[in-house]
């Protein structure tokens, strides 16, 4: 896989873990470079090197200070041209999806999205794309270069590869007129500070079975004891129990953490598609026939209100 570029998204002074996972995978497949765009990009270059990037392109232009996709398409188009890359990989996010699709149109390049894995097969790249509520895994390919791929959250573990200091190259692209017209003029509410649920190793999610918005504290306390993030089903987000940014499922986030704990969640297909690729799924539900048990590694038929406080206590005791 000669000439692979990975788009590394960052927030503040941290590179997104999902993107580092993609970089880790790309480095294993035969080497990769990375691009970091936005305020603080230069300072993150050596961090990218640790995860296997041999060269890191950085852009801190005034036009990319805001988290908007179109100026990033300009930067990537320039980097792909300057570096001669034939493969560009992205980890899914609201921003990265728009960047990837914009770049596909700009370069007239094939974009396979929602991939769960990728492998090199006889010199060709083959992507694995779950389809039809993940009941089918399609092998997908590209018929031209550059090849663009957008991976599901949590597809790969990020692992430092022991790489040295990367070569750092600054990019100063020319921005297209249409790329810089949309402007961010404000941010409000719910600006969460911790890792997003897509980046968390452990997610504790709550559904209707919690009984009331106040009972979400059960999920929050358990998440704290496990060192994880809190997610929610669409039903409870619609009911106003929890913010949309935590919604997991077809119309929310797709997550695949190492551990997913489902509290009072029935496991409707709309929720299932957002979490079924989690490594280990533990669910607690009082309805023994809840569909969630069909795809749980450990299913517990019982009352969340009794079990969860005890579980949280036990975990806290273990941590000391």
């Amino acid at each position, binding site marked *: 896989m000669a000439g692979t570029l990975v788009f590394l998204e960052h927030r503040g002074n941290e590179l997104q873990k999902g993107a580092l996972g993609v970089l880790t995978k790309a480095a294993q497949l035969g080497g990769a470079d990375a691009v970091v765009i936005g305020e603080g990009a230069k300072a993150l270059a050596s961090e990218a090197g640790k995860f296997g990037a041999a060269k890191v392109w950085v852009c801190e232009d005034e036009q990319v200070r805001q988290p908007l996709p179109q100026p990033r398409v300009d930067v990537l188009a320039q980097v792909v041209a300057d570096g001669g890359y034939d493969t560009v990989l992205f980890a899914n996010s609201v921003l990265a999806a728009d960047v990837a699709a914009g770049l*596909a149109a700009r370069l007239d390049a094939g974009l396979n999205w929602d991939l769960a894995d990728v492998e090199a097969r006889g010199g060709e790249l083959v992507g694995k794309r779950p389809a039809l509520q993940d009941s*089918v895994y*399609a092998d997908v390919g590209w018929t031209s270069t550059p090849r663009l791929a957008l991976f599901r959250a949590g597809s790969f573990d990020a692992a430092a590869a022991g790489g040295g200091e990367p070569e750092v190259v600054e990019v100063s692209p020319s921005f297209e007129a249409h790329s810089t017209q949309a402007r961010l003029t404000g*941010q409000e509410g719910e600006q969460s500070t911790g890792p997003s649920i897509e980046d968390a190793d452990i997610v504790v999610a709550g559904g209707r079975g919690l009984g009331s918005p106040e009972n979400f504290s059960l999920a929050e306390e358990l998440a704290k004891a496990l060192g994880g993030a809190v997610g929610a089903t669409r039903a409870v987000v619609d009911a106003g129990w929890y913010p949309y940014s935590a919604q997991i499922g077809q119309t929310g986030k797709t997550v695949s953490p190492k551990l997913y704990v489902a509290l009072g969640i029935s496991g409707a297909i709309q929720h299932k598609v957002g979490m079924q690729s989690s490594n280990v799924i533990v669910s607690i539900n009082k309805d023994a026939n809840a569909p969630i048990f069909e795809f749980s590694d450990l299913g517990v038929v019982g009352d969340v209100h009794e079990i969860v406080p005890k579980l949280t206590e036990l975990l806290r005791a273990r941590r000391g």
Partner: protein
Amino acid sequence: MKIAVCVKHVPEGAAKLDPGSKRLDRSGEGALNKFDANAVEEALRLKGDSDTEVVVVSMGPEKAADSLRKALAMGADRAVLVSDPGAAGSDLVATSRVLAAALEQESPDLVLFGQQASDADGAVLWAAVAERLKRPVVSQAAELAVDGRSLKAKRQTEFGYDTIESPLPAVVAVSDAINEPRYPSLKGIMGAKKKPQDVRSLGDLGLGADDAGEAGSRTSVLALGQPPARGDARKIEDDGNAAQAIVDFLAEKRLV
């Protein structure tokens, strides 16, 4: 003002793949993608009582006319269906090329998309279309205000809400949290039949055989397989010791 809404006709019920072509089997009954109903509703809300024209645009088989008729019954003014055997099997780049060509003929002030298609989960088409039209794009809009020359959108992200402002013309993908789509009235359903419904071929859009379908695509489906199997699942009833059982399980999996 002119608003174009891009909509998709999706298979109803349990979708299946055609093992031969490895494409989605579109031979059965279909319906308007439910996420696109939010985009149609938003266009109608922005139109209100004004003389704004709402045009619904789709690419798909002839049967997609059913979905366009539903949008007309909701209140859209006109429909354009790009239907051409040469467009079947188009991937993202090919579809964005065809839709952009259809939209260029309409030159709308605002193009709206729904947040995703219920048949293929990809939620990326609008950014590709916006790039081809060379227009600003805003996705995941949970609120939208338009004043004829510019727009202001509240966008849902992983971290909260961003307010984005942009001049028109522009492309916006709305989230399904933006509104509750109306049901077509009987009068609307009757009236829809009389509204203009154009069918255009690739040639009508100035596109050739290489621009769409498999020839215009840059990706391909190589094979269909089974998802990776889950390991042995365990199910227990709480006898008062479930919390401990969960801790033991997590310890065994080295998760705590």
